[in-house]
């Protein structure tokens, strides 16, 4: 239970960072984000993504365009805003720090 909880906490933080990273590579459709997250084995269910995207968008990190689809209704394609890029670079740095911290904690400072 404790392990589960910790896992969830870790995933939560990382998920947001990963989503921003994926979107930073270019305009992308929500289901494609999901596909990538799934490949990365980070996302369990799709339903989780939509509230996240909405929150990021409302915080001004994301914006979207409606793009006509060949099959079905128009789709929302997400891009990163300038704010978003700023945040992402901050997060990149934080991640490297975290990775370093994790590396140090696992192997020891001397190695």
């Amino acid at each position, binding site marked *: 239970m404790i392990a589960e909880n910790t896992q969830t906490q870790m995933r939560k933080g990382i998920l947001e960072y990963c989503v921003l990273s994926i979107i930073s590579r270019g305009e992308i459709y929500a289901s494609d984000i999901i596909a990538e997250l799934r490949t990365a084995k980070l996302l369990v269910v799709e339903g989780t993504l939509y509230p996240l995207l909405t929150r990021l968008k409302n915080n001004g990190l994301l914006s979207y365009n409606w793009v006509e689809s060949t099959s*079905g209704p128009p789709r929302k394609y997400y891009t990163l805003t300038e704010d978003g890029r700023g945040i992402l670079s901050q997060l990149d740095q934080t991640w490297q720090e975290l990775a370093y911290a994790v590396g140090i904690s696992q192997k020891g400072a001397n190695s």
Partner: protein
Amino acid sequence: MEKTIIINIGNTIIHIEESAYELLKAYLNEVKQYFANHADDLEIVTDIENRIAELLTEQLEEQKKQVVDSANVNSVIAQMGKVQDFDTVEEGEEAPVINNNYQYQYTEKKLYRDMDDRVVAGVCAGIAHYVNADPKWIRLATLLISFAGGFGLLVYAILWIIMPKAKSRIERMEMKGEPANLQGFQKNLDEELQAVKERLGEVNKHAQPIFARLGNFIGEFFEWLGRFISGTGKVIFKIIAGFIVVFGVLFLIALIIGTAAFQGFWDASIYEYFPFSIINESNRGIILFGAFVVLFVPILALVLFSIRVAFNKQAINKTLSFALLIIWLAGVAITGYQAAKISSEFKQHAELTQTVDLKSFATYTLDIDKSKYFTKEDSIAYHIDANQKNQIVVDDLEDGPFISPNRIHIDINKSETGVTRLIHKYESQGKTFQSALQNAQNISYTYASKDSALVFSPRFQLRKGSIWRNQEVRLTLEVPVGTIVNIKEGVYRYTNYYGDCETVKGGDYSVWIMTEDGLKCVAQLKEEALNKKKLKEELLDLELQQKHNLTDTIYQDSVSNRIKEVKEELGIAPE
């Protein structure tokens, strides 16, 4: 086959099966509830709906289908994730409403009539769900207040009208206070899936005018009445069927025993009794068989049918019942043929007349000898000692159900020749004139003539070997005019001569006299003569009065009227 609903989800038109629709609807409801307090609930839900539409469209294309079924919806839900999984990932200052919260909203019970657990209209069961009690206590309470001047019945009727039926699954869940979410649905997925659409239609019903409700109530009431009757009726039918089975089987056993009896296993004397006595000895076997089949098969069929009704069990297969039908028809044919054969033996009529001259007496007495005539054989059979003279066996003269009609008729006529004689006429039916005559000849009838007394036997016998063919004996006594005939009471049933004629005081006979107009009752003749005499006297009296009271016209009229009447009665022609 399943009903399909067309839905618009994420601006996409999708055909979906009803059960799948319910599932999807429940899921979306959950999602909506989950994000209800979220600032951007509409946007999130729209995104999710769009995605679901996309997934469903993809699946349809992939599987080359046109209609979404429950499996599709389930796989979409699995992909999108259940609401419970959402909150493990998403967290923020705008914390979404947690499960318990919205479940609480839906746990709120609603008052519906429970149509699944109803005795009459489900009112009590509905209340029981609402107050979380055992329906039986509510029913008991209802019953008790029903005794209080029918108040309970009135309340019941009103509640029947007011409370809506729990028709759809959602309504039933609301009634029971189960959360109307996906778990609730999946929990009951095996149960019948009722369209949520109905529930939507039901919303309008709440606003229906009371008249329409009342109409529904009346319709439902009669529907319930019909169900009650058919339910109880079924039980009654089963009870009746059970009785038929029991008595039918008893009857069949009786029939078999009876047939055996007729066949002569125990007692062949049955053929001496009337309806069977008309059957020729040679035909008995075949007729017995025919009659047995004709009676046995339908009763057997009735018993088998009753078994089916009472125990819901097919006791016999089609081939066998068809065979039974054939056997029965054969039995009917045999019996019909034999019956026609027997009735043909009544076709011809023959008469045989014998005349016996009697000694002349001024007075004759007619009587019936009630002591039974026995042949020597019969006397031995019945252990009657012929030597014991005082022993008399009295035959009861009543016609019973098993006694051959034994017709004896006695007439008394005027003798034209002045000779007293007795004419016996024996009549019978037969297939041909010869056989009819033969049958007539087989009648043996005895009478005793002792001086002026004629004692007749109450019955005729048929000589051995002959059978009943509507034999009759007609006796005609011819006596000259002026002869007195005393008719004993015992003879009355064989003659037309009794009517109003009183019996002689202290005697058991009436006195008759032969006149030119036939036999007349002496007592009656005397009375008539007396009457005539009185009328004549009155007439003389009236005529005198007429002569003396010429002045009073009103009185004159009444007197002359009376004279007319009297003259008419006396047979005197009016002047």
